[in-house]
């Protein structure tokens, strides 16, 4: 296997349940050593895809290739991948040590080596003090670490993680996100991470595939996905995106209601095409404009203070409200400059205005 062989390749993979497709003709390469996220709403097929890589579900069409080897139809115990399950799926009748050592024991690794590797792994996930405890007596976060250690200790080519942080509370989840990323860098194993949480995917991933209704909508780096969503779905799924519908003509998009937005000439979009326009809230400026910005006027409707940032809702036209995000820096905050109902001027750089066909 050379360096360019993907760790996971899905080749025209489909999974049908009855007449409906859970996964539809999926083509996907996941590079070795990457932290790769499958992101999408529930029911988009991300878990089914993961299960097909793990061998828990067989595809109805296409093939699953791991490190250049076709493993379609092979049971999970004969694939060099391991899984961290959403429910953790720990063995309650075994101690933490025996849970983590389960896979090595199955492989017939010598006892002394098992003990050593399990010890190292428990240290890596900071569970060394709890080796003799039963999973039932551990907290959610600790159980999550046991599940991670139990999978990683086998040094799989690929680690599959099925929403492993979903059951944790927000603070612990943030902490685990950072730790998980650190561990992944340390062990250098390919992680395939399934999540419905876009923040999580953006924070942790090298690459993200956004899935919807059994298909991949877009695959790219977190920045790609966030800054240059390829479709209306991706734009709206990834954070707030101020989507507005209209018709493109001569470098302008005429909104269904309200004014025409200058968007510049876009190649590949012909006049009269129905498009969506999207501008991220943090890309909208409220003062100190630069030359060349698109400037518009609207009425300030609502101010939502949330600590480091404040969100302003500005009505551009009846039924078209944009959300604008400002850092709460030292300079004068907007409500000191304007009060609710007042007309304000705002603008953005043309390159931050996305036109989605």
């Amino acid at each position: 296997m050379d360096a360019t062989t993907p760790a996971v390749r899905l080749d025209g993979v489909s999974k049908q349940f009855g007449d409906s497709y859970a996964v539809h003709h999926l083509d996907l390469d996941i590079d070795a050593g990457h932290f790769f996220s499958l992101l999408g709403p529930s029911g988009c097929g991300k878990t089914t895809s993961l299960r097909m890589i793990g061998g828990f579900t067989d595809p109805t069409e296409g093939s699953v290739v791991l490190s250049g080897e076709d493993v379609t139809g092979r049971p999970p115990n004969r694939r060099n991948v391991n899984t961290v399950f959403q429910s953790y799926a720990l063995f309650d009748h075994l101690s933490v040590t025996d849970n983590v050592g389960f896979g090595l024991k199955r492989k017939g690794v010598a006892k002394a080596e098992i003990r050593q590797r399990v010890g190292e792994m428990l240290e890596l996930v900071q569970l060394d003090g709890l080796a003799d405890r039963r999973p039932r007596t551990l907290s959610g976060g600790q159980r999550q670490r046991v599940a991670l250690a139990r999978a990683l200790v086998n040094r799989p080519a690929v680690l599959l993680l099925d929403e492993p942080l979903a059951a944790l509370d927000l603070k612990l989840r943030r902490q685990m996100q950072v730790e998980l990323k650190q561990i992944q860098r340390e062990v250098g194993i390919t992680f395939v991470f399934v999540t419905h949480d876009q923040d999580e995917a953006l924070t942790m991933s090298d690459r993200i595939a956004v899935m919807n209704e059994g298909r991949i909508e877009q695959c790219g780096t977190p920045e790609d996905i966030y800054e240059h969503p390829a479709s209306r779905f991706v734009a709206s799924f990834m954070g707030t995106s101020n989507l507005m519908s209209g018709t493109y003509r001569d470098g302008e998009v005429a909104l269904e209601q309200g004014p025409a937005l200058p968007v510049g000439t876009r190649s590949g979009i012909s006049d009269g095409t129905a498009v969506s326009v999207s501008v991220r809230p943090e890309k909208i400026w409220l003062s100190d404009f630069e030359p060349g910005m698109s400037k518009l006027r609207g009425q300030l409707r609502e101010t939502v203070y949330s600590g480091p940032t404040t969100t302003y809702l500005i009505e551009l036209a009846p039924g078209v409200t944009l959300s604008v995000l400002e850092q709460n820096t030292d300079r004068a905050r907007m409500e000191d400059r304007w009060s609710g109902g007042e007309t304000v001027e705002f603008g953005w750089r043309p390159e931050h205005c996305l036109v989605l066909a």
Partner: protein
Amino acid sequence: MTMVKLPAATAPARPAATSRTRRGRADRKPRILIAVTALFFALLYLPIAVVALYSFNSKKSLTVFGGFSLRWYRAFAHDDVIIASLGTSLRISLVATAGSVVLGVALALGLVRCRTRLGSLAGLVMLVPLITPEIVTGVASMLLFKGLGIALSTGTVMLAEITFSISYVTVILRSRVAALNPEVEEAAMDLGATRWQAVRLVTLPALLPAVLASAVLIFALVFDDFVLAYFTTGVDPQPLSVRIYSAIRFGVQPTINAVGTLMLAGSIALIALALFIPRLFGRRGGLDILSGE
């Protein structure tokens, strides 16, 4: 019974009652209901108490207590026929428990996991013994053995008891299997176990408390069973409950009080143990063992 004291302890004037005004009158203890319940408990335990009490009677009477004595227990210990019957019953219970637990656990696993037509058919067959009165199963079993030319013996009782105990084991375990997280089995396979190893190393240990509880329960039920044993037993030595049946049909024998007391104590202990076993494993124990829900 302590129940009888409850109405007095919850007189409406108590401040505790007013502090729970949200539930209002629903919390007032209905004296009549409590009296009925207390009477029920009294009548439930009276026969058991009478048997136990008169097993220690120094007289042969069942109505006059002449003083404390262990003579009937001594008589029981020296009654070779009854001791032989006890041995037979124990052997039957052990074999029937082992057989029905093995078959029943496997059946429960298959029924829950296997979604084929065979599965639903097996689910139906399994229910038949539960809704058939014992006399019918007894007659049917006896006819089957006679029809096959098998002489009735301790062995035929074992076979019949296994058949009708499988259902109980399956009913008890089915809900437990269904409540297991299927991801745990997948995790075992993910870590290199074959499908069968996953069942052996992960599923069965997880079911162990319920399996043990059902085994204890089946042991007690088979040991106590009389109708099926009565129809399928050979001449000698008959199971203990068949022996007791013959004895109580033909007049009073105080030895039976002693044997009966021991049997009641034994099965009450076993059934209480069956209810308690899940707690030993740190799980919620309870009556669902008996009702299968």
